[in-house]
């Protein structure tokens, strides 16, 4: 996790908000550093994490996680992390008997119906243990990312329904959090992606949007992060609804600074 981002969001692993949906999106840049941040953040916060990883392999996230101070292997072994490796298990769908439900069942269907099997996988992974003692703080669902589901043929409404059900169960019933990444292609032709992005935006409590700089690539400033709080927990507080910072990604850290205040240009 990146301590500076924690400061900007006003959270620490010890006191995370619960029952929130956080939307991560990126436009003209790679927002995956936000995924790595939240993964290590919630693991350090002692939450039970279900990570639906459709983009990269387990070892990729593990390597980055080690730089940020968490070991995914250890977390998976002790049961804190449930990892769905999309790249590997997608192949399993075709070599298993059809009766057995698989979270990525939609890959088998000609016109993909819905993501109910995936929802049931998440439900199974995060449901509170009956033993009574709370081993982990709260359940967290992390998805990297949702745009690839559109590319795989799932409709935008089906993805929205999946997140709706995750929100109803993980956020509302179990007081956990959901974090999902969606790419904003900026392409005016991609209506499905726009519906997904805006639909999720309306459901979210917090939106983090990583954008490339309008002026192009830069060695010292990698992009701009816009933070939008949609449903603040204390309505009476004078809240900053929207903040914008620029950032630079380093090997083990991301540094944030106000616009134009990069140390390189001062």
């Amino acid at each position, binding site marked *: 996790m990146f301590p500076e981002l924690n400061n900007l969001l006003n959270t620490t692993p010890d006191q995370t908000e619960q029952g929130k949906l956080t939307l991560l999106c990126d436009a003209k840049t790679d927002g995956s550093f936000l995924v790595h941040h939240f993964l290590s953040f919630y693991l350090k916060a002692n939450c039970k994490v279900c990570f639906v990883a459709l983009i990269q392999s387990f070892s990729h996230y593990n390597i980055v996680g080690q730089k940020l101070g968490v070991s995914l292997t250890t977390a998976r072994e002790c049961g804190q992390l449930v990892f769905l490796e999309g790249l590997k298990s997608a192949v399993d769908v075709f070599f298993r008997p059809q009766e057995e439900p698989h979270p990525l069942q939609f890959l088998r269907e000609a016109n993909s119906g819905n993501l109910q099997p995936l929802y049931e996988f998440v439900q199974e992974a995060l449901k509170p243990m009956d033993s009574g003692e709370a081993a982990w703080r709260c359940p967290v669902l992390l998805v990297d990312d949702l745009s690839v589901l559109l590319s795989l043929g799932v409709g935008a409404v089906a993805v929205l329904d999946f997140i709706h059900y995750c929100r109803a169960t993980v956020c509302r019933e179990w007081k956990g959090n959901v974090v999902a990444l969606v790419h904003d292609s900026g392409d005016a032709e991609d209506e499905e992606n726009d*519906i997904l992005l805006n639909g999720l935006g309306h459901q979210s409590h917090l939106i983090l949007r990583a954008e490339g700089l309008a002026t192009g690539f830069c060695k010292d400033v990698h992009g701009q992060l816009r933070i939008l709080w949609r449903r603040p927990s204390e309505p009476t507080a004078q809240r900053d609804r929207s903040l914008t*910072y620029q950032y630079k990604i380093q090997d083990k850290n991301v540094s944030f600074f106000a616009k134009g205040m990069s140390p390189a240009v001062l």
Partner: protein
Amino acid sequence: VTPSEGVRRGTRRILEMLESLLALGGLVLLRDSVEWEGRSLLKALIKKSALCGEQVHILGCEVSEEEFREGFDSNINSRLVYHDLFRDPLNWSETGETLPGGPLEALRALCRRTHPGPVTIALDSLSWLLLHLPCTTLCQTLHTLSHQDSCRGDSSPGEQVHVLGLLHEELHGPGPLGVLSSLAQTEVTLSGAMGQASAHVLYRRPQQRPTHQTQWFSILPDFSLELQGGPPLEPQPYPDPRVPSMDPTTHLTFNLRLSKKEREAKDSLTLPFQFSSEKQQALLCPGLGQATSHIFYEPDAYDDLDQEDPDDDLDV
């Protein structure tokens, strides 16, 4: 205008805005966006209706019942009936707890309600319904819903049905938006500037031209409405305690401050082109002990060594 008159006028204006939105009856369309959300205005209208003694039915698809009822006191909450389409709208859990027939049946059930008296129906949200139901079916049902009083022959003219629909503009194309807009008697589009929300209201009174009005407002935590004059004149300064304070004066290659000794040395320095009398004397008379300078010159082969002053023949 005395202060008390101003307050009375202000209170009247507040009441007028909510009342005028509800005055025409029928469908009130609230169009919001990701940046300017409309649920608080929806809840403010619901509160107003409940305080007027109406029963309010809410078809809740997007937020849970607890979250929707947050902020309302028990007086208002007792008048709200929440039809829960949030927990399990598509019957995935198959526990039988969900509303039978799904969203369409739930909507149609609201049309068939037989309870007498004025009623307000809130649809949170129309966008969800539009994404899950065919547009034509939804529009026909909405039309039936908002014209209920004409179906019941014995209803008194004062009893109107108010249908409040929350619609997320960015999710739909111009076709469905246009159709819903034409069904609405009152249409509110939410936007804002510099942290201040505004509502652009379009009234479609029967047999009259549509009228526009723009109102700046803010919703208080108890969902009452406060009118504002306009956007704040100057942009709110960023209170930025969270930015990691980056001192730009560190790691500079030049000195920004002088020590006392350095300042004294600087003050006592005479500038090269500032002629003080000592400097003048020093230049005119090379003093004792001053090293005189010699010029050593080896003439070239082509040099013309002439001891005459070349400027002698100038007639200046």
